[in-house]
C-alpha cells in the first residue's frame, strides 16, 4: 500500500489539534508544556513531509525541522526552569493557582 502525503498531513493535523486541546484543558503546567511540544512536532512533521513529497532532492525542509527541534528544546528548557521556579514559590504547578497574573 502506498503511503500518501495526505496521511501524514492528517496525522500532523490530529497532533496539532490534540496539542491545542491539551493546552487549553490540562491544568498541570507540565502537561501543558507537553501539549505545546505536540504542536511543534506536528509542524516539524509537515516540514519533513512537504520537503519529501513536493521537493525531493532538496534539504531545506529537513534542516528547518532540525532547526525547529533545536528551538523547541531550548524553549522547553526555559519553560521547565519557569515551572520549577513557580513550584518553589507556590508549592504547586496547577495553572489555576497562578493567581498573581491577574490584573
Amino acid at each position, binding site marked *: 500500500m502506498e503511503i500518501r502525503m495526505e496521511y501524514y498531513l492528517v496525522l500532523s493535523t490530529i497532533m496539532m489539534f490534540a496539542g491545542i486541546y491539551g493546552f*487549553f484543558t490540562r491544568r498541570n503546567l507540565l502537561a501543558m508544556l507537553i501539549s505545546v511540544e505536540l504542536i511543534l512536532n506536528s509542524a516539524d512533521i509537515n516540514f519533513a513531509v512537504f520537503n519529501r513529497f513536493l521537493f525531493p532532492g532538496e534539504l531545506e525542509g529537513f534542516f528547518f525541522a532540525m532547526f525547529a527541534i533545536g528551538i523547541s528544546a531550548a524553549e522547553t528548557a526555559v519553560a521547565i526552569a519557569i515551572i520549577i521556579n513557580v513550584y518553589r514559590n507556590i508549592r504547586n504547578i496547577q*495553572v489555576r493557582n497562578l493567581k498573581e497574573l491577574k*490584573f
Partner: protein
Amino acid sequence: MEYTLIIILLPLAMFLLLGLAGGRLAPRTAGLLGTAAMAAATAAAYTAAWEYFTQPRTGGVFPAVVPFDTVWLRFTQTLHIDLGILLDPISVMMLVVITTVSLMVHIYSFGYMKGERGFQRYYAFLALFSASMLGLVVAPNIFQMYIFWELVGVSSYLLIGFYYTKPAAVAASKKAFIVTRFADLGFLLGILTLSYWTGSFGFDVLCDPQAPAVASAAGRTFLGGSVLAWGLALCFVGGAGKSAMFPLHIWLPDAMEGPTPVSALIHAATMVVAGVFLVARLFPLYAAYAPGVLTGIACVGAFTALYAAAVATVQTDIKRVLAFSTISQIGFMMAGLGVSGMGGHAGTGYVGAMFHLFTHAMFKALLFLCAGAIIHTVHSNEMGAMGGLWRRLPLTHAAFLVACLAIAGIPFFSGFFSKDEILAACFAYSPAMGWFMSGVAALTAFYMFRLYYNIFWGRPAANLAEMHEAPAAMTVPLVILASITCVAGFIPFGEFVSSDGLPYRIVLDGGVAATSVVLALAGIGLATWFYADGRQRIPDGLAAALPRLHRAAANRFYIDNAWLFVTRRIIFDRVSAPLAWFDRHAIDGALDALARGAQGLSFVIRKFQSGNVQEYALVFLLGVLVITALAVFI
C-alpha cells in the same frame, strides 16, 4: 501730603506682622506694636487734618487733594479702577474719627482683653479693620470704596466671631456677614449701574452733577425713574445694610457677641456709619438727580430711629440697649441727610448728619467702653446683675453720665449741637418730620437714662462689694473720650464740612433747641421717676398693662422672626429645596448614570483579565482564527 499713605499702610503692615508672626510674640509685645502703629497713624491723620484745613480755600471751598493715585485695572480710557487717596473735608474728618476711636480701643483692649487667648490675633484683626476702614473713607473712586467696604465686612465678621468656641458668637458673625453681604449686592449693582451710564468709577465725575457724562446719563430713564436714581437707590441699599437701617438692622444687636471694645470701634463708631458716609459722599448726585430717593432715605432713617428707640426701652442686656441706640442714632443721621438739600441753609441736614456722625462716634464709643468696664467687673451683660455701681466705679460712672447727657441732647454736650442741627433741618423739611424726630429724641433720653439708672443707681447689686474700678489702661481712654464729648460741640463744624464745601455758620434755632431740651429733660425726668428708686413699680405696671406691646418690643417687634420666615419658609423651602433636589437628582443623577455605565462596562471587560493563562491563550487563538478567516475569505 503723600505721607497720608502711611495712615493706611501702617495698620495693614501691622496686620500682616501680627497675623503671621503674632504667635511668636509675647501678647504684650504684640499689643504694644499694634498700639504704637495706630498711634503713629493717628498722629499722621491729625497732621493731615491740620494741614488740610489750614490750607487756603480756593473759590471758598477746600479743594480736594489726591496725594496718591495709581491705575490698577483699566477697562476703557475713562473706566478704570484706581487705588489712591482722596482728601476732602468728609474723608479727612473720617480719618480723624477712625484713628482716634481706634487708638482709644487699642489702648483700652490692653486692660479689657488681658489674658485672653488669641490676644495677638485680636490685635491683628483690629489692625486689619482699621486699615480697611481708613482705605474706605479715603477711596477716590467707588470701586476702591467697595473693595474696602467688603474688607471691613470681613474684619467685622472675624471680630464678632473672635470667641469662636461660643456658638452664639459664631452664629452672630455669620448673620452679620450674610446680612451685610446680601445688602452689598445692592451696592454692587448700584456701582455697576452708575459706572455703566457715566462711564467712570471716580468720585471726581460721580460727585459732580455738572459733569457731561453724568448729565447725559441723567436723561435716560428706566421703569419711570432715571437710571441715576436707580443706581443711587441701589447704593443706598448697600449703605442701609452696613448702617443697620430697618429692615436690614437685624445683624447689629447680635454682633454684640464680639468683645466689647470691638463693639465700640466697629459696631458703634466707625463701620456702621459707612452707609451714612456713602450717602454723604454721593450726596451731590442724590440732591441733583434723585430727590425721591432722598425722601425715601429720610423716611427709612426716621422710622429706624423710632423703631430702634422703642426696642431699646425694653432690652435688659446693656450692650443690646447700646446697639439699638446706635441703630436709632444712625437713623437720625440718615434722616438728616434725607431731608437735606444742596448748599447754604438748605444743606443744614448734611452738616448736622456729618456733625452727628462725628460726635456720635465719640460718645457712643465712650458708652461702649464704659459698658466694657462695667462688664469687666460685673461679669454679666444683664441689668439685673447691676445697680448702685456709682459708688464702686466713680470714674466710669462720670464718663457714662457725660455720654448719656450728650446722647440725650443736654446743652453744651456735643450731642446737643449735632442733634439740634438735624432736628432743625427736619423742622425745615416738614413740621411733621420735625415733631416725629423730636419725639424720638425724647425717647432716646428716656431709654439712655433708664440704662443709666439701672446700672448705677437703683437696687444695689448682690456682690457690689467685690466690684472695682477698671485698670488704668481702660480708664484713660474713658477720660479722653469724655473730654472730647464735652468740648466737641464747640467745634465750628460747618466751617469745615458742608454740603457744597462753602463755610456754613451753624446757628442754633432757638425754638428747636428749646423744644428738644424740654423734651430731653422730660425723657430724663420720666426715667428718673420710673427707675431711680430701683423698685421698678411703674415700668412693671406698664408692662403688665400692655402685655402685647411689651412682649412685641422685647422681641424686637418680631422682625428677626419675619426674616427667619422669609429665609426658612420661603427661600429655603420654596426656592432652595427644589433647586437642591434638581441638583441632587437631575445633575448629579446624570453624572452618576454615566459613571455607573462606565463601571458596568468595566466589570464586563474585567472578566477577560481572569488571571488564567489558558483563557488568555484561548482568546489569542480565537484572534488568530478570526484573522485567518478574514485573510482567507476576504
